[in-house]
C-alpha cells in the first residue's frame, strides 16, 4: 500500500530527523519544572492531534497541534519542541499504520526542531516571555511559526508527490484547501506564544484554557462536515425521487454528475467549480418534471407544441433551482445543457463559446450516459461506440476539447455502466423517446 519510493522518502525523513535531534544540545532549560512542562505539552499535542477534523473533504485533516510544539519552542527550546512533535508517533488515532506513524512523528519532530532553531537564530529568549523582551520575542516567534508551517507543508507535499494515488493523500483534496489550511495553521500557531505567556501565571492550566476555543472550533468544523454529508445525501434522495418517474433514466443524474466531475478534473477546474458542476449535473434534467408525462411517453412523432414543451425543460429546471445558493455557473449549466456548438440547440440557440463552459461539459456527459444506457427502443451502446458518436458530434453538437478531455478522463478512471435494465414491470412508466440521445433525435411532425 506504500510504494517503495515513499518508503525511501519516509526513511530519509526519519534518518535526517534522528541525526538533527541527536546533534542538538540535549537539555531542557528555560523554566522551572521543565520535565513537567514537557510532559504537559506532549499531552496537549496528543489531545490536539487526536481531534483532527475533516476539512472540506474527508482526506484533508486539520489539527491545531502545532500550538503545543511552538509553545515548547518558546518555553523549553528546540530539543523539547522536537520531543513534543515526536509524540505524534503514539497518536491515539488507531487507523494510522506504521509508515504513517513513523512519518508523522519524524515530520513533527523536524518541524519543531527547525522552528526552535529559527527562534534561537533570531535571538528569541527561551523561557517565560518577559514584558521587556516581548517585542524581540514576537519577531522571533513569527519566524518560528512560519518555518514550522513551511517545513510541515513541504514534507507533506513530498510524500504526496511520491505516493500519489495510494490513499495517503489525494491531490485535489490537498490543493483545494491549501489556502485555508495554511491560514488556519498559522492562526493556531500563534496560540503557542499565548500558551507560553499564560504559563508563567497559571502553569499547566494555560494548556487547558487554550484547548477550549480549539475544541469549539473543532466542534463547528465537525458540524459543518456533518451538515455537508446530510446535504449531499438529501440531494441524492430527492434527485432519485424525481427520476422514479421514468424507469429507464434512473440514476441518469447521478451518472451525468460523475461524468461532469471527471471532465472538470481533467480540464483543471477549481474545487469550488467542481462541486458546483457536481450538483448541476445531478439536477440538469430536473425540469423534465414540468413536461407532461404523455409527451415524454409518446411513441409517434411529436407535434410542434409537444416538442416545444420538451425544449422548455432546461428553463423549468432553472426555475426550480434558481433560489439555491449555487454558483451562478451551475444555473447556467442547467439552463444551457442542450445548446449545440453549431448554434442549433435549445433553449437559446447559443453557439461556440457563447455556451457556458458548464453547459458544454454537462452536454457531453449527458449524451454519453444516454447512449450507454438501455432505452425502450434500443439496447445500450458500448463505451467504444458511444465515444465514436461523441467524436462524430464534436464540432457540431459538442465542444471538441471537452470531448477529448472526457475520453482522456475515461482512460484514467473507470466508468461504471448503469445496471443493465430488464423489462420494466410497469410499462406505463417508460419514456419512449429520449431527448438526450444524439443518435436518435426526436421526431417532430414537419408542417409544410
Amino acid at each position, binding site marked *: 500500500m506504500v510504494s517503495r519510493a515513499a518508503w525511501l522518502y519516509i526513511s530519509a525523513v526519519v534518518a535526517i530527523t534522528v541525526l538533527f535531534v541527536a546533534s542538538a544540545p540535549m537539555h531542557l532549560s528555560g523554566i522551572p519544572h521543565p520535565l513537567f512542562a514537557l510532559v504537559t505539552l506532549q499531552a496537549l499535542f496528543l489531545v490536539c492531534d487526536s481531534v483532527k477534523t475533516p476539512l472540506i473533504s474527508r482526506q484533508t485533516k486539520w489539527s491545531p497541534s502545532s500550538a503545543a510544539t511552538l509553545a515548547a519552542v518558546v518555553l523549553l527550546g528546540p530539543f523539547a519542541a522536537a520531543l513534543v512533535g515526536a509524540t505524534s508517533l503514539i497518536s491515539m488515532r488507531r487507523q494510522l499504520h506504521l509508515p504513517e506513524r513513523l512519518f508523522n512523528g519524524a515530520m513533527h519532530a523536524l518541524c519543531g526542531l527547525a522552528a526552535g532553531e529559527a527562534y534561537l537564530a533570531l535571538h528569541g529568549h527561551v523561557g*517565560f*516571555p*518577559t*514584558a521587556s523582551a*516581548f*517585542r524581540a520575542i*514576537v519577531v522571533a516567534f513569527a519566524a518560528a511559526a512560519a518555518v514550522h508551517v513551511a517545513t510541515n507543508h513541504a514534507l507533506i507535499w513530498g510524500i504526496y508527490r511520491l505516493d500519489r494515488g495510494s490513499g495517503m493523500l489525494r491531490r485535489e483534496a490537498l490543493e483545494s484547501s491549501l489556502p485555508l489550511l495554511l*491560514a*488556519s495553521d*498559522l*492562526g493556531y*500557531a*500563534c*496560540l503557542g*506564544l*499565548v500558551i507560553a*505567556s*499564560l504559563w*508563567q*501565571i*497559571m502553569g499547566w492550566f494555560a494548556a487547558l*484554557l*487554550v484547548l477550549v*476555543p*480549539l475544541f*469549539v*472550533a473543532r*466542534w*463547528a*468544523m465537525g*458540524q*459543518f462536515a456533518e*451538515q*455537508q*454529508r*446530510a*446535504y449531499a*445525501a*438529501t*440531494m*441524492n*434522495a*430527492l434527485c*432519485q*425521487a*424525481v427520476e*422514479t*418517474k421514468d424507469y429507464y433514466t434512473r440514476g441518469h443524474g447521478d451518472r451525468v454528475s460523475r461524468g461532469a466531475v471527471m471532465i472538470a478534473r481533467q480540464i483543471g477546474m477549481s474545487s469550488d467549480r467542481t462541486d458546483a458542476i457536481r450538483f448541476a449535473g445531478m439536477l440538469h434534467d*430536473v*425540469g423534465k*418534471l*414540468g413536461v*407532461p*408525462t404523455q409527451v415524454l411517453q409518446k411513441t409517434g412523432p411529436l407535434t410542434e407544441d409537444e416538442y416545444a414543451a420538451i425544449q422548455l425543460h432546461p428553463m*423549468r429546471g432553472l426555475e*426550480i*433551482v434558481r433560489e*439555491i*445558493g449555487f454558483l451562478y455557473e451551475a444555473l447556467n449549466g442547467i439552463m444551457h445543457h442542450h445548446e449545440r456548438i453549431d448554434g442549433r440547440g435549445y433553449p437559446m440557440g447559443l453557439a461556440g463559446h457563447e455556451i457556458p463552459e458548464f453547459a458544454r461539459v454537462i452536454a457531453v456527459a449527458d449524451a454519453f450516459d444516454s447512449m450507454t444506457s438501455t432505452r425502450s427502443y434500443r439496447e445500450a451502446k458500448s463505451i467504444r461506440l458511444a465515444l465514436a458518436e461523441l467524436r462524430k458530434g464534436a464540432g457540431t453538437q459538442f465542444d471538441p476539447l471537452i470531448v477529448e478531455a472526457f475520453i482522456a478522463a475515461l482512460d484514467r478512471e473507470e466508468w461504471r455502466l448503469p445496471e443493465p435494465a430488464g423489462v420494466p414491470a410497469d410499462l406505463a*412508466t417508460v419514456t419512449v423517446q429520449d431527448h438526450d440521445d444524439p443518435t436518435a433525435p426526436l421526431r417532430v411532425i414537419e408542417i409544410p
Partner: protein
Amino acid sequence: MTGGTLTGRPAPDRVAYWQALDSGRLLLISAAAMLVTAAFAGTVLDIQSRHLNWRAALAFGGFIAFGELLRLALPGGREAAPIAMVGAMAYALLMSLPKEGVVHYNALLVITVSAIGMTVGALPHIAAGRPAGLTGMCTRLITVACVAFIFRTFVSASFVDQPWEFAFSIMALLVILGWLVETMVGALIRADDVGARFSVAMWDEMRLQWPLGLAVGASVIITVFGAKDMGLMELAILIGPLLVTQIAFRRYAGIRATYLQTVRSLARVTEVAGYVEAGHSRRVSRLAVAVGRGLGLAEKELLALEYAALMHDIGQLSLRDPIPGGATVLVSPADQEQIAELGAEVIREAGVLDDVATLVRCQSWPARGHVPAPPLGSMVIRAANAFDDMVGSSTDRDRSAAALERLRLDPAEYDGRVVAVLAEVAGRRVSSRL
C-alpha cells in the same frame, strides 16, 4: 404575548401584539442609548484624569470595530459578532498591562470605547446597504455594561495581587453572567419577532449559543491574563485563532442555509410537475411552522417540521397521473396513506432525515383513534395541508373561516389544539394583508 393562549379565535388584541413587537426593540435601543449618553458624558468629564490610557482604548476599540465588521450569521437568521464581544469583554475585565501595571478606568470608559468601536465597525455594513444590526449591537453593549459595572469596582492593586485562581473564578462567573444576559435579551427579542414563547425561545437560544459563548468566554479570559506580559500586541496575535474559529462557524451556518434553500427549491418539483398548486408546499410549510411555534415546539423540531411540510407531497411523484388540482384532502384515505408512505420512503433514502420521514409518513393518520397516535408535527402538517387545499393563496376571510369550520367539525381527523392555533395563525395572516 398571544402564543400561549389557545382561544381558538383570532386574538382581539392583535394590533397591540404588533405594537408590542416594536416596543421590545424600542426599549432595548433606548436603554442602550441612555447608557451610551451617560458613558460619553462621564468619559468627557473624566478625560483630563491621568488614568486614561489612549493606546489601550484605541487598540481595544479597533479590535471591537474589526469584530463588528466581521459579523457572523448563525442558523435561524441570527447574527453574532464574537470577535467584537471578545474585545469588549476583555476591555471590561482587563487587569494589568506591562508598562503601567494595574489599570484603573471606570465602566463608563468601557461603554464609550465599545460603543464607538461597534459604530465604526457597523459603518461599512451600512455603506454596503446591509442592515445596521442595531439590535445586536445594543444587546452586546448592555451585556458589556453589566459586566463592566460589576468588575471595574473590583480592580485594585490588592485584587490583582491575589492568587490568579481568585481573579479567574470571578471572571468566569462574570463571563457566564454576561452570556446569560446576552442570551436572555436575544431570546426576548426573538420571541417577539417570531411569536414564540419566551421559555422556548430562551432554551433554543441557549442551546444554539453555548458553543460560541464558551469559545468567547475562554478567549476573553485568555486575553485578560495574556495582556499582563504580552501587552496590547496580544490582540494582534489572538486575531488569528479567533478568525479560524469564526470561519468554522461561518461555514457551518452557510451550509445549513444552502441545505434549507435546496430543500425549499426541490420541494417545488411537485408544483412544476403539476401535482400540486403553485406555492402550495411553501404555504403549508409557513403555516405549519407558525402553528408549531404557537404550540411551543423547539427550534430543532421546527426545522424538522419545516422540512417535512416542504416535502409532504413528494410521494406524489410516484403517482402516474397528478391528482386533479393536487388536493390530497380530496382523495381516499388509502391513497393519502400511500402517498405519505411513498414520500417517507424517498426521504428515508437520504439516511439523515429520519425524523422528517416519520413526520411525512404519519401525516395521513387521523388525530384520534389511530394506534399509535401520530406525532404532533404530523398532525400540524395534516391540518395545514387540509387548510391550504381548501383556501389556497386566497386571503378571503369567509373562505378561511369556512375551511377552519370544516376542520373544527372533524375532531377525529384534525387535532383540536392544532386547529385552534391554526385559526389564530390564519387570522393573523389575513389581518396582516389588509
